[in-house]
């Protein structure tokens, strides 16, 4: 009996051998792309996948620096309104169409037409006119100067789709991506994978270095880690913190840990008592031990936030974390008239284990200075209804709110304006502190239309210092991205914003 079992087991072992074939790497990611139309998504992970098929005029490298892709160069007029682009020659789309200025115009016209109902509309709505000067030359005029314009073109959603394919597929372009990227679209099985094959006429000679690329959505953390170990995946992100040590000891794997630009913060509704009192907000800042939070909730894969916008974002201003001083916190609460503390609710924007740990930790820390908080992790529907679309600021129920953000344009503007500007109060954007400071708003507005780098840096630095002083937030931690690849894989990086750069993907034979 036992022998027979062993025999069967042996047969199984021979039959299994599930490892990915050489040259056909599989990348395991945490969620399914909801679309393959880069203009119709706000999910970072989705654009990580679409980047296999699409390129834009500009792109971000793995350190979030802007680089030229389909544009060779550009000039900006002194008033900051007119951009003239010189486009790359000799680039073909997957369907054979030639890439030119008219193609760029067709794509921008498409997203700018409200009739198309595309989710990325607001990224481009400052554009006034788009003129084709010659096949390789394009002029874009803005309604008002906009400092981060090139950054918004470098964002992965500003991809250039083949105009022929756009005509052919219409809305269904979401299921038939045709771009200039390193891989042509092969197959999208929604429940299983998105697959691309090497594009023979790719303009960058020598790339891509693999025959196919397969993106596999695997929502469970532990399963992605298991797939790495069995060789069923060559890349996995994110990984469970608890397993990092064990994976590190595996010689077949490479573990990577890099600082992200994802900042976790606690926003306080400054329209409501007791958070309208600066001393209370300062007290909360003093009451939280950020070092310990990083250790407890993030297993050390985070560090205390160095200001309002994390380092790595352009124009981020580095500031010392608020010191941990519970005695001072209690003192401030006493001065504010809350010697016996008070009760409050703390919501988390996410229901993940990490978020649950974080709010429990915050609850404990605030409890130590006499603030009794009730915690609730909001599922997405509750979050949108109670926080993001609360119609009236005066009656909004949000008080303490644990959330996170990464600036998708890689610029301070998108790390500040949607979260702290007066115009960004819900239901418009995500100013969940209902913070409003005229000076801060003016600085942001001025920086947005400025085209002078040094001036912008100074304006943003001032703006961030104001927020730190007014303390509508308790900045908590900046996360570290933890991911792993098989030893044979190279050229795949998790970028600081949680996007994935896979342009140089290669597999050692």
């Amino acid at each position, binding site marked *: 009996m036992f022998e027979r079992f062993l025999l069967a*087991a042996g047969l*199984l*072992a021979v*039959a*299994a*051998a*599930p490892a990915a074939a050489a040259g056909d790497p599989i990348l395991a990611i945490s969620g*399914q792309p*909801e*679309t393959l139309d880069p203009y119709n*998504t*706000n*999910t970072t992970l989705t654009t990580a996948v679409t980047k296999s098929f699409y390129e834009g005029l500009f792109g971000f490298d793995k350190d979030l620096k802007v680089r030229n892709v389909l544009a060779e160069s550009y000039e900006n007029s002194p008033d900051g309104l007119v951009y003239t682009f010189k486009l790359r020659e000799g680039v073909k789309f997957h369907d054979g169409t030639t890439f030119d200025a008219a193609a760029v115009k067709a794509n921008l016209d498409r997203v700018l037409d*409200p009739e198309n*109902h*595309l*989710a*990325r*509309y*607001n*990224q481009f*709505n400052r554009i006034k006119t788009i003129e084709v000067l010659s096949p390789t030359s394009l002029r874009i005029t803005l309604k008002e100067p906009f400092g981060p314009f090139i950054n918004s073109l470098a964002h992965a959603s500003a991809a250039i789709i083949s105009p022929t394919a756009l005509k052919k597929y219409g*809305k269904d372009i*979401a*299921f038939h991506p045709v771009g200039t990227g390193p891989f042509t679209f092969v197959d999208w*099985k*929604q*429940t*299983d994978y998105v697959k691309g094959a090497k594009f023979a006429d790719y303009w960058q000679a020598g790339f891509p270095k693999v025959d196919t690329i397969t993106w*596999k*959505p*695997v*929502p*469970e953390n*532990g*399963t992605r880690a*298991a*797939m790495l*170990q*069995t060789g*069923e995946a060559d890349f996995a992100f994110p990984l469970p913190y608890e397993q990092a040590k064990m994976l590190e000891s595996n010689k077949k794997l490479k573990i990577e840990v890099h600082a992200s630009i994802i900042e976790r913060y606690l926003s306080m509704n400054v329209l409501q008592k007791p958070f309208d009192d600066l001393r209370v907000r300062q007290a909360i800042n003093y009451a939280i031990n950020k070092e310990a939070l990083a250790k407890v909730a993030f297993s050390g894969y985070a560090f205390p936030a160095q200001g309002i916008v994390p380092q790595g974002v352009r124009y981020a201003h580095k500031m010392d974390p608020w010191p941990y001083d519970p005695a001072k916190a209690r003192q401030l609460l006493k001065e504010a008239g809350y010697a016996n503390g008070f009760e409050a609710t703390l919501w988390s924007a996410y229901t993940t284990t990490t978020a649950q740990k974080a709010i429990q930790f915050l609850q404990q820390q605030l409890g130590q200075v006499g603030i009794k908080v009730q915690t609730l992790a909001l*599922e*997405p*529907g*509750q*979050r*949108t*209804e*109670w926080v*993001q*679309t609360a119609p009236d600021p005066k009656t909004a129920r949000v008080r303490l709110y644990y959330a996170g953000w990464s600036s*998708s344009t890689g610029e301070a503007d*998108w790390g500040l304006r*949607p979260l702290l500007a007066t115009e960004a109060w819900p*239901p*418009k*954007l*995500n100013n969940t502190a209902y913070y409003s400071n005229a000076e801060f708003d003016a600085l942001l507005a001025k920086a947005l239309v400025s085209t002078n780098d040094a001036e912008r840096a100074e304006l943003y630095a001032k703006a961030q210092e104001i927020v730190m002083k007014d303390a509508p937030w308790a900045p908590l931690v900046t996360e570290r991205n933890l991911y792993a690849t098989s030893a044979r894989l190279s050229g795949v990086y998790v970028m600081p914003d949680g996007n994935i750069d896979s342009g140089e993907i290669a597999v050692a034979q």
Partner: protein
Amino acid sequence: MLTFLLKRLLGLLPTLLIVSILVFLFVHLLPGDPARLAAGQDADAQTVALVRTELGLDRPLPEQFVRYFANLARGDLGVSIRTRRPVSTEIGERFLPTLLLTLTSMAWAVAFGLIIGIVSAVYRNEWPDRVGMTLAVSGISFPAFALGILLMQIFSVELGWLPTVGADTWRHYVLPSLTLGAAVAAVMARFTRAAFVEVIGEDFVRTARAKGLKERVVIAKHCLRNALIPVVTMMGLQFGFLLGGSIVVEAVFNWPGMGRLLVDAVNQRDYPVIQALVLLFSLEFILINLVVDVLYGLINPTIRYR
């Protein structure tokens, strides 16, 4: 028998209608704005409004209601808010993997459950019973999530015998069906044992033994049939639950099934998908109940259909 079946099948329609009305209302009562969710974090109010019109969510609720039912009557389940694909495709892709996984899990769960249950009942309070019931209690109390991860760690990662994720070959079915079936097998074993213990004490069993029948025949023929009624009821219920797709097992083994679809749909307030899934689950439960009723008659010929 035929009229019974026809009557029951016709009775389906009003039930499904009531379910679909209730589901429509409940789903729209849930807090959360699908347009906001579909538009994503970076979207401003203008973009959300665009998405809302695109999804037809700007229309008054009664109009959406009428439109939903008009489409439903034509067999059109609508388009998913999240993926913009037809709901029938979304569900169709996942139905078969869920069904096959349910069948495999049920098959071995029923086999093991029955055997353990019968053995335990026959050797009541002796060591086979103790072992069987210890196994059963462990099966119920061991969380599926932990069991799945453990099995995967042993058989996929350490031994390399079986693949971790996917649903392509029979080897992909082994671990998920074991994980999914463990709890069912345990419940079945407990149920079978309880039903059997009761039946073994009945007079007709004593009579059967008294007339000199072999113990094997007494157990397999006389007891089993009579003990099966509650067990089959239980089986039907478990089958129905499994058909809904297991969220945990599907997450661990990345199974392309309906549990994950439901979770994603609820999280994103994907109204058309939630409505269609709930409707499908009710239909499945009604059909399974019907099958169970028919099975009663096969097991116990004294049961008559009217």
